């Protein structure tokens, strides 16, 4: 049995600079480039995933870096990320969720043509734990994952339908189980929170919400969203969906106990959303809105660049914004793209 620590990785980092920067007093997270970002706050940590094509001279592979930093209203020191690299195809569905204890998280990195891994961070030695990674053609691709009590669960979709995967790495049990659940799902269209599983099929105008368990999802109810569901984000209290209808977009909050759905924001474009506590935060362009307790969203700040991702603990808002700056490299002035994560302000 062979174990290679960060071999190939040495070669990888030779062409793709490590995308994290941080310092002991870090107030910001600085990521190279304008990757696709997802973020979450929980358990005293800000976590994020950053996916982008990594261009080598003669080919492209895909990278997803998941990082974390302590969060207590401000962002602490960035710690070493989990690095995922693949040539299996375009990586288009990476997501990360904080798990609420020990600054942990669950991250997934599926692609258009492959399943990709489900990873829980971390065991007592601060080592990531792979709960699922299936290289077979047509294997179920994880669409959303999170912590449900002490069980890490994930919803995955494939041509043969959706499945709910489960494992208990928190308790040291890495055996993953998988059961079929109704319908299907796709990248970004599923989410797990304690006591809540939520998912939608590709092109669906409704979401399914139920209680996840080792035998499947019970008490499933289907809630119409009034348009095509583009993303799903679950919290223990409610589920947030981004819904498109023509050129219009809206953010719908569906309360878990009652199934009551209400629109908290509407506009144009493709907003990014996050939720935490009893709040929803919404970003479109450089504008950030927030909704507390299901109220209509109110303007809550302006980013310095296009909002790539948001995170909230229900009180504070962290924005990941895309910026450019001029830099001089070997006497040549060039434009450098980066994504900066910082505390934008408070939920209103």
């Amino acid at each position, binding site marked *: 049995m062979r174990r290679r620590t960060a*071999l*190939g990785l040495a070669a990888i980092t030779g062409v793709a600079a490590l995308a994290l920067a941080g310092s002991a007093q870090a107030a910001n997270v600085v990521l190279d480039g304008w990757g696709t970002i997802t973020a979450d706050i929980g358990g005293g940590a800000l976590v994020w995933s950053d996916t982008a094509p990594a261009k080598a001279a003669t080919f492209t592979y895909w990278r997803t870096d998941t990082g974390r930093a302590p969060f207590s209203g401000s962002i602490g020191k960035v710690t070493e990320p989990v690095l995922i690299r693949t040539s299996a195809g375009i990586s288009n569905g990476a997501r990360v969720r904080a798990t609420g204890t020990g600054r942990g998280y669950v991250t997934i990195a599926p692609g258009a043509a492959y399943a990709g891994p489900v990873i829980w961070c971390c065991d007592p030695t601060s080592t990531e734990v*792979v709960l699922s990674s299936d290289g077979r053609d047509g294997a179920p691709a994880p669409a959303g994952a999170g912590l449900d009590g002490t069980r890490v669960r994930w919803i995955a979709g494939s041509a043969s339908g959706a499945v709910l995967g489960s494992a208990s790495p928190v308790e040291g049990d890495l055996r993953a189980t998988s059961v079929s659940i109704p319908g299907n799902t796709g990248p970004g269209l599923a989410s797990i929170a304690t006591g809540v599983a939520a998912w939608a099929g590709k092109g669906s105008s409704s979401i399914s919400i139920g209680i996840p368990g080792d035998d499947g999802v019970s008490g499933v109810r289907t809630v119409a969203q009034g348009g095509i569901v583009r993303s799903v984000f679950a919290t223990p209290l409610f589920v947030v969906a981004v819904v498109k209808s023509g050129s219009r977009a809206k953010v719908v909050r569906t309360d878990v106990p009652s199934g009551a759905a209400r629109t908290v924001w509407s506009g144009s474009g493709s907003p990014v959303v996050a939720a935490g506590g009893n709040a929803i935060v919404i970003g479109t362009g450089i504008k950030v809105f927030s909704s507390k307790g299901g109220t209509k969203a109110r303007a809550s700040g302006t980013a310095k660049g296009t909002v790539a991702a948001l995170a909230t603990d229900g009180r504070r808002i962290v924005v990941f914004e895309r910026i450019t700056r001029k830099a001089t490299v070997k006497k040549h002035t060039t434009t450098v793209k980066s994504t900066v994560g910082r505390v934008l302000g408070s939920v209103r």
Partner: protein
Amino acid sequence: MKWLRVALAIVATAIAVSPAMGAQMALQDDQLPNLSGAALEQRLDLLQSTGTTITRVDILWGFVAPTRPADASDPGDPAYDWARYDAIIKGLRARDITPIVDFAWTPKWETPSGDRNAAPRTADGAAFAAAIARRYNGTWPDAAGGTLPLVRRIEVWNEPNIATYWYPQCRRQGGRYVLDSARAYAALLAASYAQIKAVSPTAIVIGGVTGPVGDSSCNSTDSSVGTLTFAKEMVRNRVPLDAWSMHLYPIGSPTQAYFVPSWKTIPQIQSLVDRLSPGAPIYVTETGYHTSYNRYHRYFVSESQQASWLTQTQTMANRYPRVEVAMWFNLQDNPYWTGGLLREDLTQKPAWGAFRQATAGQSRPAEWSR
């Protein structure tokens, strides 16, 4: 004489393109040392069914020598337990599969730390190499009758440029870390070469066996040494060898990857090896692609991609005439290694078929038949 030159040129071209003269696609099964009896025989049958006619066997020193032998170079020393390896080597011979053996995994008694990756004492490591060579030089009596088979190809250690197999890589000296593994490995290789040749004159002693490391960074005891840096250190130490071995796990397809080490690193390695043993063959004794993510192997491809890249691996190996073998690692997946032709549950990946196809079109050169 023009016709003669033309005829020779045609013959030379035919030799150059003949599959029989190309690199041999081969396969390792790291589970062999863990099996015995009927289970081992079944496993060897499985290995043979892939079509491979060459394989690699890790001789784990700590397994063979659980206690310190009185005469370490004598394979008959009562401290040695060769049972599992005798069975493997005989099983391979019965199936006409040629083994390349390597040795590593330092016994507990050998070093103060007792760690299996601890760098061995040169004399002890070389004495064990001699014991392997003597036991499998074709004349050692087999308790079951006759003699044990000849094993000609012996790799000295496994991946001595990474701390997983050789620790420390660097030592603190005068307030900074300095490279130590290359010097110590060079001493082991030189001593092993002499002792192996003394007891098995036709043996092919293979040096390097480098793990797939690109950059060198000596900033701690468990740093890694780059493939090219390690080879340069061997040149500087003027080590004797008959063949050079390196391990390739490219980031990107075999034809496109260019990071060090990848298939495109072969010409640089050849130039360095020529300064030690002009024209010496290159053995790629590990290569492959993982089909899922794990923390030890963060780069992965799909199963179908693995299959097509196995075929490309053969193409690239054949592009360099001095590459005699490209050893796919591994037969079967395990939780830490998903580069197998078979999944953990023994179901076949598409790469199984690709490997069978690769071996079907090749014939082992006579030189490799013993």
